[in-house]
């Protein structure tokens, strides 16, 4: 934990990041008119979630279930239409100045699209240096040293990778850069939106292993947004299943996956392909 975070007491029982009954409404395209109200669609409907320090929570659901919108609200990128998002007990909408900066620094994100989330014209060393300069206020020399340490930490030898451009890297390597960039701000929680689903099966395990080691070393909390139950099993302490904007099931990862209570969770489990050809219906 960082000293700058002591604006609110850091108690394990106080969630690090919390959504309280948040909803997000989007206007339905094509509805409404000059004198007619737009129809509103609830992408996220009265969802509450709490991430505790050092915890790995998985958020599972198919596309359109609202899991990414919920993730964006937790990051402060989308404002909730109803309800509130709290960081260390304080409403992020009410945070201003230093408190707002602390939140933005300590809650980081890793995206699925490793190509689209890095500036194609900027060497990766510079992409990782940016949060160091902006969020931590390091000078150029210190930040370049820190970049090397970060690249090293995510398994990219700095001498070889520092001045590479994103297109020269493989998908797995780019995702390592994405993780290094998130780590640069010394976050307390990382929201990872499908961080491995665009990667080859063989590279997935490497990235998950890296993320797990970082979680253990730094007591990092994660929110894994994913539709891959293999990822959930391997990584998560707790899991929350979303369907059509609502949470339909939540609990310890092992419990939910071994004895799923909701029909949708069972459907997800049944749909996950298994490397056993004898299951093929002949």
């Amino acid at each position, binding site marked *: 934990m960082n000293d700058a975070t002591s604006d609110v007491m850091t108690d394990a029982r106080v969630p690090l990041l919390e959504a309280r009954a948040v909803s997000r409404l989007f206007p339905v395209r094509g509805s409404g008119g000059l004198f007619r109200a737009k129809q509103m669609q609830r992408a996220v409907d009265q969802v509450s979630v709490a991430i505790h320090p050092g915890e790995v929570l998985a958020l599972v659901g*198919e*596309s359109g279930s609202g899991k990414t919108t919920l993730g964006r609200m937790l990051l402060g990128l989308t404002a909730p239409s109803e309800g509130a998002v709290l960081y260390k007990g304080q409403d992020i909408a009410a945070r201003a100045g230093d408190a707002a900066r602390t939140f933005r620094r300590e809650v980081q994100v890793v995206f699925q699209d490793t190509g689209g989330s890095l500036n194609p014209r900027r060497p990766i060393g510079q992409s990782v240096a940016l949060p160091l300069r902006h969020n931590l206020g390091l000078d150029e020399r210190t930040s370049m040293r820190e970049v090397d340490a970060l690249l090293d930490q995510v398994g990219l030898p700095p001498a070889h990778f520092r001045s590479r451009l994103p297109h020269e890297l*493989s*998908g*797995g*390597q780019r995702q390592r850069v994405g993780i290094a960039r998130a780590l640069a701000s010394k976050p307390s929680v990382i929201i990872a939106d499908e961080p491995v689903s665009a990667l*080859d*099966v*063989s*590279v*997935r*395990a*490497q990235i*998950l*292993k890296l*993320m*797990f080691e970082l979680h253990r070393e730094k007591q990092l909390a994660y929110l894994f947004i994913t*539709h*891959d*139950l*293999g*990822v959930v*099993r*391997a*990584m998560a302490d707790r899991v929350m299943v979303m369907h059509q904007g609502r949470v339909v099931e939540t609990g310890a990862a092992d419990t939910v*996956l071994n004895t799923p209570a909701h029909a949708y969770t069972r*459907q*997800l489990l*049944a*749909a*996950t*392909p*298994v*490397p*056993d*050809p*004898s*299951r*093929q*219906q002949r």
Partner: protein
Amino acid sequence: MTATLLDIRKLSVDIARGRRALRVVNDVSLTVEPGEAVGLVGESGSGKSMTAFAVMNLFPSPLARVAAGQVVLNGQDLTSLPADALRRVRGAQVGMVFQDPTSYLDPLMPVGRQIAEPLRAHGRTDGIDARVLELLDLMELPQAVAVARKYPHELSGGMRQRILIAAALAMKPALLIADEPTTALDVTVQAGILKLLTKLRRELQLGILLITHDLAVVAETCQRVNVMYAGQIIEADAVGPLFKAPRHPYTQGLLASILSPASRAHSLFSIPGGVPIAGQWPSGCRFHPRCPIARPGVCDVLAPELVARGSGADRCHLGGEAVAADAWRTEARSGTRP
């Protein structure tokens, strides 16, 4: 026994790079029988998609070309066909679907008309509407008439992929090439598409060449599988034996990297290192720098041949030896694992 539907013989694909040519597919042979689904598995950069494009000579770049070998479809060598004759084969005898259904559909055209396009392109003029509705039914899309009038953006990702499969099958081709058809889809939607492919294979006696990086998808769908690494097939077999007792250390590693119910983050398996870049293939066996049982003086020097063993074939110098039966475990015991 029916005649072989697709017979790829010693196929090589080059990409022009200045004066040099980069060989991205090297001496690949595989077959697909009618009514059979064959998996072509590999990581990005293994050459699996290039192999698929080579079947129809439809490369994404004009720099790529078939450098050697034959692609024999129903007894006819496609590589020797002139362009206009090949055009009559594409879409009529071979259909193809890709990973990202959205970018292969015209956003401004109702999907029904897009399904009809191959019919018109191949000169059909009557019965088109009826055929489109029949295809939508076959794809298990409810309310075929209404769906045919919709635009791509009104459909979900899974429905769009069904539209593309319908278009690919409009001319009743005997072979469907599916390049990562479910990779961009949700698991539940993926399961539906894989089930549909199996149904089509059985009901239409359709031959399917399924290209994917996911061995679990192959296990659910295919009867035989070819594993590619660095431009070569390194193991081929029926799915039963391959999943039960893979012989090549790379196949074993790929299988071990699949997340299973028993996977836990602290003990996740991954093959060390990365796939080599085309044109920078290692000497000898292309997998030897990552291989746990590589034998110095052999594997780093001699390029292994694809050797028939049991019901399949593998490209490993140690393929017949006990040490290769469980390459990664053997290595863990001797304690040399990086």
